[in-house]
């Protein structure tokens, strides 16, 4: 048995040969027509992982022209064997842009609205706020005269949504700044 590759669970004993798509033209009538225009036609598969619980179900993302067109469970992941729960099953619509943030947004002090800003503008302004707060709040030595090199007036919350590689950098980022008010979902 080929245990290294079992992509697409095969239907047990199915006697119907899959038709090449070229044979599924518009002239086909009846039931054949309702199986034509297959949405996975011309897609490539990319393996992703469900962004929810720590079972880590693998998901096949079907991609056409650089955009995802469908998602389903990956049978090769031995834990899930292609299964998904309702959240994992919703990966396609979850990624759609009609409900997501797509641009950097800025809210000025005392303002009642968001403003669209460029990334460059945002980074510039964020950098300034961090530096000013750090410079103002940095503690070289505590009351006992011990060297502590920290800033108590800046915090970070998050996140287990980060990949391991992002987490590793995030930790380095925070200790580099001198931040100690650090927490995330592992504690809630």
């Amino acid at each position, binding site marked *: 048995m080929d245990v290294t590759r079992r992509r697409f669970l095969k239907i047990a004993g199915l006697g119907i040969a899959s038709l090449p798509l070229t044979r599924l033209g518009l002239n086909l009538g009846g039931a054949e027509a309702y199986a034509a225009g297959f949405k996975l036609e011309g897609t490539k598969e990319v393996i992703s992982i469900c962004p929810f619980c720590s*079972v880590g179900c693998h998901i096949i993302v079907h*991609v056409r022209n650089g955009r995802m067109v469908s998602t389903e469970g990956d049978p090769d992941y031995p834990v899930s*064997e292609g299964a998904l729960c309702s959240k994992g099953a919703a990966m396609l619509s979850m990624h759609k842009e009609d409900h997501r943030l797509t641009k950097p947004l800025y809210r000025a002090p005392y303002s009642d609205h968001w403003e669209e800003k460029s990334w460059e503008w945002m980074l510039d302004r964020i950098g300034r706020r961090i530096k000013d707060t750090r410079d103002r709040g940095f503690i070289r030595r505590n009351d006992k005269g*011990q060297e502590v090199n920290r800033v108590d007036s800046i915090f970070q919350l998050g996140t287990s949504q980060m990949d391991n590689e992002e987490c590793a950098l995030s930790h380095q980022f925070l200790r580099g700044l001198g931040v100690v008010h*650090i927490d995330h979902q592992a504690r*809630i």
Partner: protein
Amino acid sequence: MTNHWIDIKNADAILIMGSNAAEHHPISFKWVLKAKDKGAAVIHVDPKFSRTSARSTLHIPLRSGTDIPVLGGMVRYILENGLFEKDYVVEYTNAAFIVNDKYGFNDGLFAGYDADKRAYDKKLWAFETDEKGIPKKDKTLKHPRCVFNLLKKQYDRYDLDTVSKTSGVSKENLLTLYKTFGATGKPDKSGTIMYALGWTQHTVGVQNIRLAAILQLLLGNIGVAGGGINALRGEPNVQGSTDHCLLWHILPGYMAVPRATWPTLADYNKANTPVSHDPMSANWWQNKPKYLASLLKGWFGENGTKENDFGYRMLPKVEPGVDYSYLYIFDRMYNGEINGGFVFGTNPLQSAPNSNKNRAAVDQLDWLVVGELHHTETSDNWHRPGVNPNKIKTEVFLLPSAHRVEKSGSVTNSGRWIIWHDMAQKPIGQCRSMGEMIVDILNQVRSLYERENGVYPDPLKKLDWPAYYDSDDMAQRINGRFLKDTTVKGKTYKAGDQVPSFGALADDGSTVCFNWLYSGSYTKEGGNKAKRRDLNQTAMQKNIGLFPNYSWCWPVNRRILYNRASVDLKGKPLAPQKAVIKWTGKGWEGDVPDGGWPPLATGKGRYPFIMRKHGFGQIFGPGRPDGPLPEHYEPVESPLTKNPFSGQFNNPCFKKTSNEMDALAKPGDKRFPIVLTTYCVTEMWCGGGETRNTPNLLEAEPQLYVEMSHELAKEKGIQNGDPVLIESARGSAEAIAMVTVRMTPLQIEGKTVHLVGMPFCYGWTTRGVGDSTNRLTASIGDPNTGIPEYKALMVNVTKAQRLRELQA
């Protein structure tokens, strides 16, 4: 998890307690049902009858916060009826260790309690040691102060009557549970425990889990297939984010954060590196200085020199005794002591306890950076219902984040498997990965310090920080590299080569490694092992579903931790029909053993619990701040006025903050007679941002509800589907009543106690779904972790006259 998801199928009995696995880890039930098909009993102990209970052999309702009585009763039953695995207990646990004569326990308090400090002097709980410093043992288990007898004494009070009237569990159900799970104490049987936030989110959270671990040690269920103490981690990468320690108190790889009292690396190493004089103890943490030096070299690169302790001197140092976690962050923010910060991929104004206080706290910030997929109750706090934005000063930067399929990288599943996902599509719009965000932000700050200088710029200037985010490069750095040509086990590596495993890491600054546990995941020989998709396994491995060639798991691809406890002293499997490892006379077969030493009987072996200083499973745990043995304390808010087990009502060390928004109900407070427990629901995720913005999921669970029994509903004049108001000492929430047979009123100390349950995923930024359940919960937490007590609070419920938050 000590074990992994697939391994659940190997269990002879499954205890799901403090977890609603079928709802929150739905795919776990693939493996639970496989075990059940083979005859395993599945027992679900939980206040609510859930989808998990529906597929379990037996559901046992208990009052939230009484897990220790129920489990303590099981310890008593197991000891009384001789169900424990004697050889395992004597050889592999610290049951035989003798505790010094200053130790004691009296009316709910252990020896050494200081009421002013609300803390113990743990020195009084130390083991008696011989002249070499090795703990004295009595393998006959007769010594009155050996751990085994202290355990017996501790749980002697946990008789069926007291446990039943405290927890509300019938004696019949208790006995069924005890007999069923106790039967796994036979050497060839195993039982697994699946737990989650239902255990951690209590002011006795860690002690809940300690007691489960004690039970599993007594029954010989640690290290074996179908056994273990299995935390079903929530969140997509909470295992990985914990391993990389995005937490104030630890550095990547579970090493303590530097303190003000450890100014130099030598001070740190002296304080944090355990020493064992027992030649049979591997005492793995003796290697800590190598792991820390390699981490520091990773952070500071060539700027981490011997002179500056590889950069250690520049690191922030915390004050001993000060807690910097969630509860205290919000408390200090409320008091105006915190001015700005970052919130990435989390929604604390929805998911942290006491939302009203936290929302007011965030108003005090000068600036806030939020990296997110959607608007959240945190990013949009400045225009929440009832506040005037013109009065709120916070400057908010809302950065659009790439979603999972829009980036590549690895996450770690609950079974410690590191698994890689590829980028399927580029981020939509102007979205960027959080990796890009933090790299760019810090580069911006660094350039400002380069240009303008500022206060102590050294650590910023000296960081070895990338110019742009590259997940593959970071994965390599996490594994670790040699900085000079090195020969390991006869094989020569060049400077710049990947290290083969953490065995190659050094304390002299010649290696870098961002996380020693992940060392071996991305090697010169094997490439990026998180990408491995090879399902091949030997017959022995296949028998228990080990899949050692699929991805890679920490540490060193060991799939079942402490697996040398699955064999006898000669290396023979205790359960041959589901062996994890076995000694062939030359080496070990099966899983990667906990160190390759030969079996203990050869005299050249090492005790199996290698991460413990002495090498033994800790039935007695003298390192915990709130006691070496778990003891029942009432939740901070409780329907009772007296703890049935002692004169000490609450955990004497629980954490709390105290300002005007931190009100608590008194014991037995008549204003709030109903127990509230909070939880997730299958179709929503935690604070709910990702899922309630996904229309197909919101359709399935559209609005905030409160589950309650028919008996309570009748008492309160509430019909199914009615809008109701839930109030605690801190706030109120509006919800739809779900009146159900699945909630059971319990008889506690002769009185009826009602319990209600609510999800916490609904927030005001999604119109008409309701708002934060955590407006009801309190800023109180476990003494070990600070994890808040979300699971047991006191509320009142009344029929609502008018809908506000739940309007369509």
